[in-house]
């Protein structure tokens, strides 16, 4: 499943380039200088214990969190800085949330079409057609008219993925997409994510699913105390880790 070429962080034309990213909440420094490159089509999985700054790092990329210092570039364009058109930027960055966050008053279809209509400016028919295509891709074409409360958690999250993918972003951010789900519903969401990768989507995934990291990631990034402790192939990081810190983490994750 892993592509043979993705061995090292791509240096040429990365889709996402993070340099010296810092973020403080009050006196607490959550990110202490993160550097990260993600190449086109690459699936990078960020792992680490809770509180290591994984989610915050992800949320800085589309500026749901405001970085304290450092630069982030997406598709060559600087994300940080006062003059950035946030709405234009976010259109190019899809996000899937731990809390799923479907709009409860809209059907699955309505959840997907909203941004297609209001952000991408598509007409009613066109946006619905596109939304149905993307619901089809996550295997939920038959649930287009269901409301979120009528869907299982796994189905909801798949709609969440369709909602983000429908805008055809340059990169997809997954913030612990399966953490809120019952264990038996995790698989269907991970399967959709695998398919997303197979379609060539660039993905940055924060997750605790070690199997997913091992089997799907081109590269695993281990974060610890607000910085990248190590990165490399899933084997390097998760199977034969060099750091004691990571060995402890892997052992505990297996238990």
């Amino acid at each position, binding site marked *: 499943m892993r592509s043979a070429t993705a061995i090292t962080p791509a240096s040429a034309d990365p889709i996402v380039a993070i340099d010296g990213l810092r973020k403080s909440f009050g006196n607490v420094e959550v990110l202490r200088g993160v550097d990260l490159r993600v190449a086109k089509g690459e699936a990078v999985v960020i792992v680490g214990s809770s509180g290591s700054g994984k989610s915050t790092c992800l949320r800085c990329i*589309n500026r*749901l969190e405001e970085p304290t210092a450092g630069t982030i570039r997406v598709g060559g364009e600087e994300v940080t800085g006062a003059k950035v058109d*946030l*709405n*234009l*930027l*976010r*259109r190019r*960055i*899809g*996000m899937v*949330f731990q*809390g*799923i*966050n*479907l*709009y*409860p*008053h809209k059907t699955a279809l309505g959840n997907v079409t*909203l*941004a297609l209509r*209001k*952000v991408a400016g598509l007409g009613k028919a066109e946006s619905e057609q596109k939304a149905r295509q993307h619901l089809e891709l996550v295997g939920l074409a038959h649930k287009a008219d269901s*409301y979120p*409360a*009528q869907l299982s958690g796994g189905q909801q999250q798949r709609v*969440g993925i369709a*909602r*983000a993918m429908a*805008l055809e972003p340059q990169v997809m951010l997954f913030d612990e997409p399966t953490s809120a789900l019952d264990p038996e519903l995790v698989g269907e969401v991970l399967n959709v994510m695998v398919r997303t990768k197979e379609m060539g989507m660039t993905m940055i995934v924060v997750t605790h699913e070690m199997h997913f990291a091992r089997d799907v990631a081109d590269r695993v990034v281990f974060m610890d105390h607000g910085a990248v402790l190590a990165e490399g192939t899933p084997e390097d990081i998760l199977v034969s880790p060099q750091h004691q810190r990571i060995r402890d983490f892997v052992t505990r994750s297996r238990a």
Partner: protein
Amino acid sequence: MDQIVRYFFDFSLMSAYWPDILRGFLITIEMSILTVLIGVPLGLAIAILRLYGFKPLNALIILYIDFFRSIPQLVLIMLAYFALPSFGLMLGPFTATVLALAIVLSAFSEEIFWAGINAVAKGQWEAGRSTGLGFNQTLVHIILPQVVRISIPPLTNRAIGISKGTTLGSVVAVPELLNVTSSIQSNVANPTALTVGALLFLALFLPFVRFTRWLERAYAHPRS
């Protein structure tokens, strides 16, 4: 039992007064509807204004809502009618009453909408913004529909409670329903007039309550 019928249900006594009663009833309906139509949207507008978070403006808003939630409506009506003319603003009794009640309702409904806005999960904002929707678009398409839904029951209570304050208009001589019927009561020396008034109030507010129940259902989204 006979006595009760004689005192409270002697409708023959009313025959001469039906036109007055009807006029009073219409005035009460008009005042109630105007109070709600002005008060609730004004409250929503203030809640949205507060959401933008301009500090000095928010301090003013909080002063406004705390003041008008605390002051008795009766006093406010008196002030609107008797005190505003000294500031060059001459209001008729009808307008003074509606204005006072609408302002009180706007203060209460602002608080209800504000609580509703805060009750919508932060993730809803994030989901909307993450797809490139702007603040206003997220507010209009994602947040407000959910706010309206959770606000309807408490809003209904408030709107009815305050609309019933139209009876206070009698202190500035608005010929509304209760004013008319209590005058008739004195004229004929029989409280049947008040029974008629009460029945008409029921006739006005029961459909209103039913309407808001329907609204609740219309705004509900299916839960599994």
